[in-house]
């Protein structure tokens, strides 16, 4: 009497590269206290909880969580994790599964102002996630068949690179402008002795 097991979230995730050790998490919280995103950007961001939700097959909660989308893959947690779980790979895996399941990012992604975009393509080249592409679209009040940058919300990580590089100030990130906090945090980490320089 063997029932065929329906592959659930955990099984799907474990099959992805880097996610094999997701069950090994014993919830010590090292990743969370090491994370610059959690401390400087978004207190609701919590990889430990996401790992637990995955282990318990809480598909709906995991896919609508903001945690997978906010991870910057800096891998500070990977170096600190006592169980050697590649947490950023797990978060990336959850994101992949969420997108495949039709979930959209719960984050505010980069937005292009079609009225001012000049279609230079700088942002397309700069985007580290290949989320931006140039498309011919009709823009009301401006013209038809214009080359305008378009952001794929599923791929955008809201890092702000495009916004910084844009020549015509046409891309902005509305809710996640607090990236200075991330820079500060990473900067202070660079100053600690483990990277090399004493204070």
């Amino acid at each position, binding site marked *: 009497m063997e029932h065929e097991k329906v592959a659930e979230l955990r099984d799907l995730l474990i099959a992805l590269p880097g996610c094999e050790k997701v069950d090994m998490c*014993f*919830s*010590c*919280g*090292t*990743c*969370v*206290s*090491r994370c610059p995103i*959690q*401390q400087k950007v978004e*207190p609701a961001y*919590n990889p*430990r*909880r996401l790992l637990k939700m995955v282990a318990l097959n809480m598909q709906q909660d995991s896919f609508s969580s903001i945690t997978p989308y906010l991870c910057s893959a800096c891998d500070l947690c990977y170096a*600190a994790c*006592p*169980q*050697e779980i590649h947490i950023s790979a797990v978060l990336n895996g959850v994101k992949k599964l969420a997108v495949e399941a039709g979930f959209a990012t719960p984050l505010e992604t980069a937005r292009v102002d079609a009225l001012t975009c000049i279609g230079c393509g700088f942002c397309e080249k700069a985007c580290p996630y290949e989320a931006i592409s140039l498309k011919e679209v009709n823009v009301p009040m401006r013209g038809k068949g214009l080359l305008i940058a378009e952001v794929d919300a599923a791929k955008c990580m809201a890092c702000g690179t495009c916004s910084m590089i844009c020549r015509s100030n046409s891309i902005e990130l509305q809710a996640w402008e607090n990236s200075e906090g991330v820079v500060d945090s990473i900067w202070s980490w660079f100053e*600690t*002795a*483990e990277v090399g320089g004493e*204070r």
Partner: protein
Amino acid sequence: MVDAARHPKVDVRTYTTVERVEGYVGNFKVQLREKARHVIADRCNGCGECAKACPIEVPNYFEMNLAPRKAAYVPMSQSVPLRYTIDEDACIHCYKCVDACGALEAIDFSQEDKIAWEDIGSIVVATGFNHFDPSVIPEYGYSRYPNVITAMEMERLNNSAGPTTGNLIRPSDQKNPQRLAIINCVGSRDKRFNPWCSNFCCMYAIKNAVLLKQMNPQLEISIYYMDIRTPSKGYEEFYDRARSMGIRFIQGRPSLITEDPKTRNLFVHAEDVVLGKISELEYDMVMLNQAAVPQLDVDTVSSVLNITQSPGGWFMEYHPKLRPVDSPTDGIFLAGACQGLKDIPSSVSSGLATASRAGRILHSDEWEIEPIIAQVWEDRCVMAQGKVCGVCARACPYGAIVIEEGKAASVTVAKCHGCGGCVAECPHNAITQMHFTDAQVLAQMRALLADKPEEKVFAFRCHWCSYGGADLAGTSHFDYSANERGIRVMCSARMDPDFLYEAYRLGAGAVLYSGCHPQDCHYITGQKVGATRAERLAKIFEKMEMTPGRFRVEWISAAEGDKYARVINELQQVINDIPHDQLRQEIERLKPEMEKRARRMYETPGVDKAVEYSEEMARIITAQEVKSGA
């Protein structure tokens, strides 16, 4: 230790290393090197004038380098014997100590190491454990931040005989701390360093916290933990008491410690996992409860004593449940943390257990061993003919086979456990195992494969694991092919290639070569000997173009009855899948090849001559006994 040293029947040898161990249970010969103290122990009265006169100061290892000691020193106040030692590495040979010693004339710089052989009945290994050095964990800042200390340093700071006479002070400014953090699992339960749980640190952290809180109730103590493990009697009650005293327990593993460069106060960054919030609390002092790791010289000790290590570097016990204090070598026992981490009560119990195990040997004139030992047929051994061989000695996990040039290999009977590895490995069939002789095994095989052999699945099973697995498959009523026929040998190491050639020569449809999983082997490395051979055999059969699947190697434990049944069924399926005529043709085709390869086996007396054979063996053994005077 002082009490033990005073006992008339206890001889404590300190400052002495074991360099070589020879012999066997009850008859060990041990080479001891007593290092030169440069002090004549009989003349020294321990007055300490030499230490007063000595101008050299070096860090005191016993005080965790928190205090100095002289080059003329006693390691600690309970040292046995309480005599001074000159530290040759630090001494500058000013000879002020000689003048200070005066008329006693106890100091002798001409002393050299004394090497002596001793007769020993049984050996107890109690080498203990070492401490993990947390300075390799960069995020905790040990050795960079002065106020981050280890548990052992705390032990000395907190000890009334320690360098501060029990006054707990911060190393940075010698003030008493008001806020103390204790961090558990530093370097343990951490795959980057040591995966194991160090067993006693939870209780050790709580003990230290309670002790410090009793001495100074104003001291705020927080313990950072992942899990608090309090499994023994009274431990959970002690944990309760600690909480009722106001000691704060924070569940969460700190990821970073930072320091305020002005005040030298420390900030511990951790997530309180219960709240799901980051806590960044300020402390005056942080104690790292570091992991316990094996001693640095475990490899030397295990090679000197010929005992094995389990993963991690702890000495391997004979059986984890049934013989936890015996080492795989008879007459050598393991006490305390060198076998696996233990707290004080468990260490004392294991020490008492080893004493009683060792006493059994010392009190008996004779020692019973299993009769299934290996015997060398001296006329056949090529070593006796002046050739170089030694294959048997390499296969022996116990070092029981003695190889000398120009002499036949000889088995130290007391060391032999009867795995049969040497028997199967010997290229000249010069060794046999009592009760598992080639003739006996062949007789069984011929009987089992007498009728319709091509339909049979023939299984070689090791005594300890796969035979148990087959037993379990039967008692659990698992369905498996009725064509299965199997024999038992002691270890997969005994499964002679000749037996397999013979099985195929007799026409067996499929053959299973099974034994313990590598980590479960009851003969230390017997399974490895068997596994290497099985690999070699698989290649040979492949070259012969035997149908794949007719030879199978599986490691099956005694608990894997279902696996045994499955493997047998799969082998039966292999036979079923080959058309009957084709299988018969293949068997006939391979027969001459098998016969050729198994040729040397027929040189040993056959089944029909079994009686003469055993008489011959009895004669050889008696001759050996007479020769060795046993």
